[in-house]
């Protein structure tokens, strides 16, 4: 387990505000799910959060505690690809930031689900290449998103939380 130092990020941000903004803009900002692990730090900055990483045999989990109280966990494989994201907190996270190139697929699937005989109920999206499960209620949302094809061998969807 290793501790990052968000205060150093913040102080750097304060010290070189403009420079950092330019740097962040130049990074692949929308590249979390399916992106490489370096996008985790981009997310941390975006969420003004603190980060803690845990490494297991088959993946690394980076837990970001956002300023809004929402906790996001990003799962990266040993080759450095973010294959899953899980969250819980009072409000849903910035899904555009976290899903990256998968965001549009999520938006379309969520829209399609609300068009069927659904009413108010959890979102359960299961498509080739993207699974999103999201539920809860205002003040307590939770969910996860993953790319089934990218799950490292031996990792079960239930383990992602």
């Amino acid at each position, binding site marked *: 387990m290793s501790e990052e130092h968000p205060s150093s990020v913040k102080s750097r941000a304060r010290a070189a505000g403009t420079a950092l903004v330019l740097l962040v803009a130049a990074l692949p900002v929308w590249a979390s799910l399916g992106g490489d692990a370096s996008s985790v730090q981009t997310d941390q900055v975006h969420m003004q959060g603190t980060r803690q990483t845990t490494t297991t045999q088959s993946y690394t989990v980076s837990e970001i505690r956002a300023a809004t109280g929402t906790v996001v966990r990003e799962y990266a494989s040993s080759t450095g690809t973010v294959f899953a994201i899980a969250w819980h907190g009072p409000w849903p996270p910035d899904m555009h930031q976290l899903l990256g190139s998968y965001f549009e697929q999520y938006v379309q699937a969520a829209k399609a689900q609300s068009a069927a*005989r659904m009413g108010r109920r959890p979102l359960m999206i*299961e498509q080739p290449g993207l699974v999103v499960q999201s539920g809860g209620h205002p003040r307590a949302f939770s969910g996860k998103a993953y790319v089934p094809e990218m799950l490292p061998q031996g990792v079960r969807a239930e383990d992602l939380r």
Partner: protein
Amino acid sequence: MKELRKLLIFTVTVGLACALSVACGGGSHSGTQNTIVTSGTNVAPVSVNLGPAASDGFPSVNAAFVSVTVCVPGTSNCKTIDNVLVDTGSSGLRILSSEFSLPLPQQNASDGNPVYECFPFVSGYTWGPVQTADVEIAGEKASSTTIEVIGTSITPPTGCLNFGLPPSNNVDSLRANGILGIGLAAQDCGPGCPTSIYYECPASGSCQGISESLAQQLQNPVTLFATDNNGVIIELPAVPAAGEASVSGSLVFGIGTQSNNGLSGAKVYTADGSGNFTTTLNGTPYSQSFIDSGSNGFFFPSTITQCPRSSNEPGFYCPASTQKLSATNQGANSVSGTVSFSVADAATLFANPNDSAFSDLGGTFSGAFDWGLPFFYGQNVFVAIEGASTPGGPGPYWAY
């Protein structure tokens, strides 16, 4: 007089429904008949029905509706809006702009720009201006409270769109004329409300997220009633296994504040700071579980067969035979109790397009148990607001 007649008809209807239904009061829960209060200044009739017509032809399923009157503050310039969803999973009143036309005062930010709200629910978001109104339900009144008027020509800001949720900004997508949030929370957003919920929108330029104070946020309207302001009871009769066309019941305000709203032996399950408690199913505890009249089924993790993805009910359970299950709820106060319930084939239930109420409708969910409206059939469920004093101790809690 007209009100009295409505009340009489309502009482007779409930009685008749009970007389005709073998399962009346039996339910899947306790086996004893629940008493439904139908008179009192703190009692509003509730109806589970097909809801407002949506253009896709799908009716509402397990949605409880109430009528709410909205007035220009301090005046008799009012409009009564029917088909407002009774939602114990959120707090605050939200009404579609298409359902009324009243000159309600707009809430403005400190710099004078109008305040808008983007409120995320699980399956959609509402977006619209925050305005001030007197809100009347039954004989209760919340004076000069803020409501969200859903539906506006102002484009939702990026922070709102980034939730990735579909808009619930008209009857077709909301499947109701509004949402009456009467949940555990006293305000809709709470302390430390993030800047992705409330916005100020200048006449030109884009909306900017703001940190809305507790006092400025949408309030749970019940907290502003002069009396009966510590919580609510939802009282609905049992629904037979095959489903029912419609169901009549009551929304009762106050807990132990009148002769008609006592706890009378209901067990108190306190909620944690997030509005959750623990449900244990097959030995697995789910600590982020909750009771929510705004969810339309029992949603929980299970290996029960799901309806086909290509069907009209993907994500609901479609078991070959009705599954009988048992789970244990435990409050933060360690009080626990067993709940027995059933899950039937959703496709069979939905085959009758005239039915709107189903006691054994379930669907998939991961990581928690969402006790939706079927949980309320056949048992009175008390919802005590956070910080409120009640004969069962302070809220937040559920009791049943």
